[in-house]
């Protein structure tokens, strides 16, 4: 593990570079194939509405995968992530148009831990709403 960020160079409150991740219906079809999650709420609008959703929604695990990119892009080596957890609080609704939806992710160092580890808290939003809760990673820095 060779993180490019040094423990001594961060403080509680240090912000990670924020990123926006686009997600369209095509993204969801591709993720369904790669992950093996073919639940129709992620690609079939008729089915999604029949089960009470406003429209097709992104896979929760897709949103979780995007959110941690703010951390892995920061550290360079993805192996720096030693713990990662989220709560799925609101769906990311993906309309059937050219725009789709956007997942907005920001993060900051929330605590400095032992052994050059830090806890990073992530804020993950779409359409103005927080979509993940308790979104936290423990990260091994250099």
């Amino acid at each position, binding site marked *: 593990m060779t993180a490019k960020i040094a423990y001594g160079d961060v403080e509680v409150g240090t912000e990670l570079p924020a990123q926006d991740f686009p997600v369209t219906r095509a993204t969801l079809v591709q993720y369904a194939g790669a992950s093996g999650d073919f639940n129709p709420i992620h690609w079939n609008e008729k089915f999604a509405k029949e089960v009470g959703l406003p429209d097709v929604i992104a896979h929760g695990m897709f949103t*979780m995968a995007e959110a941690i990119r703010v951390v892995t892009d920061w550290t360079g080596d993805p192996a720096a992530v030693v713990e990662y957890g989220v709560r799925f609080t609101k769906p990311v609704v993906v309309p059937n148009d050219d725009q789709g939806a956007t997942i907005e992710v920001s993060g900051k160092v929330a605590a400095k831990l032992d052994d050059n580890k830090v806890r990073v808290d992530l804020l993950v939003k779409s359409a103005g709403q927080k979509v993940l809760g308790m979104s936290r990673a423990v990260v091994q820095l250099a």
Partner: protein
Amino acid sequence: MALDQSFVGRSYPPTDPYEVGREKIREFAEAVGDTNPAYTDPEAAKALGHPDVIAPPTFVFSITFKAAGQVIQDPQLGLDYSRVVHGDQKFAYTRPVRAGDRLTVTSTIEAVKTMAGNDILDVRGEVHDEAGEHVVTAWTKLVARGLDAEEGQA
């Protein structure tokens, strides 16, 4: 419907090995739009100290969730899978999953609760490699929604 509390602590037999391939990792990385070369270029991964390309942190969920299927679909437990959504997900890594791994998953029911009309099931999946070394543990909270519940998504 209240789930049977006696299932707490129950473990299921380890799964048959899942062999992690470079191209499956590439497919997953492309699907999440992540261009980190550690996922696709063995030389870039080696430069970081890994013996082969590694998988993005959430890649292993496909393997642990499939393993959790034997819990979810256990007729004796009685979970209504048609109402199940994903509540929480957590991973703790000893090392990243990498190409060439042959991974087995041992699933254990950590908790069974009924809250506000929802059935809640916590499953822990311990992932080991062919040498028996721990790779990652995945905790998955599943919620079988009551008719009035709104929180959560699949």
